[in-house]
């Protein structure tokens, strides 16, 4: 697909996110907007969403940072997994679109949202492919604050042990978490070196540039190691007053802010 087309899709997804969070009066716009381009690159360009002979999806995706559910649902909707009109029911009592992803939702393989758990699940999926000698890649999206969870590093060692080169993880490196800058909250730094020391093939890219994201994914094809793409992103990307503002981690825009955000995304 042409890059202009992908960027247009990403803008539409961002509008959906803002609408969903505004309608729900709750949710996590900052971290959903930051990783929108990664999900668009995956679902609209790189992932093979077909099924193998056992009904397993050829390429799989695990949203470990489950609080970015709004972008996940919007992207799944853009691929026909969820009716678009259902997005406005997000987080409401009579809706199946729970606050964090549930695998009762079409297209979602595993529930997530309790941070730190998704990479292990992705490992298991990649291991299953290895055992059966099956094609396909397992993608996993991690938050940068999320890697403060010890289980992430447990999973890193497992992925290295089993040489899961069919695993491609993204780190949504927007630099902010609820209590502030990730460097201040738990001194999360030297991320590149950390993953390298754990035996991973590490790349960095502009995580809000779909072309760069796609190029980094292409670079993993000949990798012999588990792959991590440190995607430098902007929290709240696309809505000027949300960009790089930690306060927009888990807050819904009021009516005025909503109108302003939508006009910026039109």
């Amino acid at each position, binding site marked *: 697909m042409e890059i202009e087309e992908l960027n247009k899709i990403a803008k539409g997804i961002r509008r959906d996110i803002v609408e969903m969070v505004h309608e729900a009066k709750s949710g996590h716009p900052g971290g959903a907007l930051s990783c929108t381009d990664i999900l668009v690159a995956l679902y609209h360009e790189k992932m093979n969403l077909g099924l193998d002979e*056992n*009904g*397993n999806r050829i390429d799989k995706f*695990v949203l470990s940072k489950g609080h970015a559910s709004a972008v996940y649902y919007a992207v799944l909707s853009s691929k026909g997994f969820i009716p678009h009109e259902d997005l406005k029911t997000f987080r409401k009592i009579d809706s199946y679109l729970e606050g964090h992803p*549930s*695998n009762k939702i079409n297209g979602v*393989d*595993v*529930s*997530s*949202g*309790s941070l*730190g*758990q*998704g*990479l*292990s*699940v*992705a*490992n*298991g*999926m*990649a*291991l*299953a*492919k290895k*055992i059966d000698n099956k094609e396909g890649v397992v993608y996993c999206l991690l938050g940068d604050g999320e890697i403060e969870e*010890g*289980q992430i590093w*447990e*999973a890193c*060692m*497992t992925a290295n*042990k*089993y040489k899961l080169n069919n695993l491609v993880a993204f780190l949504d490196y927007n630099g902010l978490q609820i209590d502030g800058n990730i460097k201040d909250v738990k001194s999360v730094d030297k991320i590149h070196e950390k993953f390298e020391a754990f035996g991973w093939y590490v790349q960095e890219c502009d995580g809000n540039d779909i072309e760069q994201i796609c190029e980094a994914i292409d670079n993993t094809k000949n990798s012999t190691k588990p792959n991590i793409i440190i995607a430098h992103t902007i929290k709240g990307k696309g809505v000027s007053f949300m960009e790089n503002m930690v306060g927009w981690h888990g807050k819904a825009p009021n009516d005025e802010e909503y109108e302003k955000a939508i006009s910026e995304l039109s």
Partner: protein
Amino acid sequence: MNSTRKAYGEFLVSIGDNKDVVVLDADLAEATKTNMFKKEYPQRHIDVGISEADLVGTACGLALSGKTVFASTFAMFMAGRAFEQIRNTAVYSHVNVNLCATHAGVMVGEDGPTHQCVEDVALMNVIPTMTVLSPADDISTKKILFECLHYEGPKYIRLGRSDVEDIYTQDSIFKIGGSNTFGDGTDGTIFAYGPTVSIALNAKKELEEKGVYVRVVDLYSIKPVDRDTIIKCAKETDKLVSIEDHSIIGGIGSIISNVLCEEYPKKLEKIGINDTFGKSGNWKEVYKYFGLTAENIVSKFKED
């Protein structure tokens, strides 16, 4: 005589020809007996090292890809350390995974309280939609695990460290949600599961010699529990006693009490670990220390 953990290892080997079977461990394969499977099918034995949270997550990823998955570590580290991974990843996602936790209860013996999990039944039972099973001997372990192959969803299977007496025969039947009743005495019912079933059966024999006729109910399916049998026994027998290698808080005694409370209010005497940690020692001495003995059960019937 066999331990339920070794029966588990033997069961895994018996189904190993099925290429979909994958077994996981967290550096305890020698102890959990998954090493028996590893010896025969090394390519389908995954050892994630000492990382139980990762164990549960990896097991779920394999199961979500259609594998028949058995994951093992000690009960303390499965139900305790990885509780939230079990709750949020395995059970909330309704993953078809078998979590086989060995070394449950004070039966662990010499390793002492840090390794004697007496809270796992409570922790697993409270998770919505979880299935919790606890076989009592060699045959019941193999038969219950066989049932698990055909029962979709997350399951916690509680296994023990030490050899226990053979109770069942190849004709015995097990089903998830069921129980097995020994005898039809009306003087009382002894409810048990896991290693306390054989203790209860010994008590039943001793009581018979004194002219007291009780029945023993093996509640191997802790969740879903066989409510009908609990109520039937409450109606048909005089005294009710439960015995378990687990805390009396949140264990089978609590589960039975809940059923009785709602359906047929009646007193239940609970034998178990009484709101305390375990104790190092030879397991039989530890059982004696905590009153997990036939003599203690018999004494409950003398008091009346």
